[in-house]
């Protein structure tokens, strides 16, 4: 073998490692990316992939308003309890709609703050769990609902949020909230869900004509915008997202009832009110 051939052969052998190094580097990068994305869910420092999209979710007919622009008494179906709920045990950030939509006792030791989208299937699955939790921990847990309609993927989500707020103006926010989740499949893909929402309004016994009028009012939209601004400030990118006493729960803790209950149990016990 000549010196030239030998040199070529040596060069070829050295090159043998190059593809393996490249493949290994991509494998490591892929594993690291998955680890980072899963971890992102577990920490408050998530990096939303489409936050600009969320800001465009806001109803176009509305003008951004301060959190205090929303309705006051009665709209959260819990007069008097709302203001203190939003000032304690929630994550620091933009205030969101004021007063917030709160269900549960004002004196509760545990506050769950949910960012939800009425058209999001996982939110629909979490909804009965949260209702059960509220019943099981009556007096010890309260739930704040924040609107985060992901309009880019859920075409009727913003309108549904406005329907809930419109019902809230007549003091039936939670009734409409429950209706929207319970009948999610019925209206989600409807070309025009308004007649269905009007039917729900009739079922929860509110003034349907006023409801139809309120659904498009800037006042209704302004509360949703305020909630979106809070979601944006907290860098919440997906739904459902739940904070427990201001601490972001992981996706597993949010979606698995046993884990969610374990977190609540621990928080209740920590507050010295465990059973």
């Amino acid at each position, binding site marked *: 073998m000549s010196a030239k051939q030998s040199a*070529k*052969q040596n*060069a*070829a*052998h050295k*090159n*043998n490692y*190059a*593809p393996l190094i*490249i*493949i290994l580097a*991509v*494998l490591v990068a*892929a594993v690291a*990316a*998955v680890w980072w*994305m*899963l971890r992102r*869910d577990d920490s408050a420092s998530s990096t939303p*992939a*489409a936050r600009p*999209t969320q800001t465009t979710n806001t109803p176009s007919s509305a003008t951004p308003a301060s959190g205090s622009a929303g309705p006051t008494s009665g709209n959260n179906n819990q007069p008097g309890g709302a203001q203190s709920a939003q000032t304690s045990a929630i994550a620091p950030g933009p205030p969101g709609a004021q007063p917030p939509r709160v269900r549960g006792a004002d004196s509760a030791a545990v506050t769950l703050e949910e960012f939800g*989208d009425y058209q*999001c*299937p*996982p*939110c629909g699955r979490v909804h009965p769990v949260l209702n059960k939790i509220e019943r099981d921990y009556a007096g010890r847990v309260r739930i704040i609902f924040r609107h985060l309609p*992901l309009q*880019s*993927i*859920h*075409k009727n989500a913003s309108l549904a949020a406005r329907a809930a707020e419109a019902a809230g103006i007549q003091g039936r926010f939670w009734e409409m909230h429950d209706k929207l989740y319970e009948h999610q499949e019925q209206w989600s893909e409807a070309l025009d869900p308004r007649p269905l929402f009007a039917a729900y309004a009739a079922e929860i016994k509110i003034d349907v004509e006023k409801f139809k009028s309120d659904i498009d009012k800037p006042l209704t939209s302004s509360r949703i915008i305020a909630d979106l601004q809070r979601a944006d400030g907290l860098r919440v*990118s*997906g*739904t*459902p*997202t739940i904070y427990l006493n201001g601490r972001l729960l992981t*996706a597993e803790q949010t*979606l698995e009832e046993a884990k969610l209950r374990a977190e609540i149990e621990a928080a209740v016990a920590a507050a010295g009110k465990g059973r």
Partner: protein
Amino acid sequence: MSARESVGEGIADEASDGSNATRRARLRDAITAAVALVGLADALYLTVEHLSGRSVICIATTGCDKVLQSDYATLPGDLPLAALGALAYFTVFSLATLSAFGYRAARPLLTTVVALMFASTLWLLYLQAFVLKAFCSYCLLSAAVTTTLLALVLARRFLTRRD
């Protein structure tokens, strides 16, 4: 002769060839590997979102939830179908990279894997169009990537012979 020596000789053979045809074939392999990386990123994102169980941001279409949360999106053992896709794209990337560096044994395997992926893609497109009646933009991107991979692999196979 060890496998490494055999491979080394293969590389030396191709290196000594040095023809434009070989260079073009290697360029196609490199492009195949790069396209597979796009598919890998897409599939990894879907895998993570599937595991998180949350709604994903869907681009241009509105059927992501319906598709990604259907029974077809999960394999036995609760394994996301997207994870299998990620594995397939990584395999294609690896084989294309090896082929670009002269590992001839990788080429028939690369063609076979891409052909299987394309067949799976056709099946998944059928499910979206006729069974679920909803389209997920990430799945459509994956279909486009797999179709591109098939075109590249076929080009490698037939154009290189012609060259």
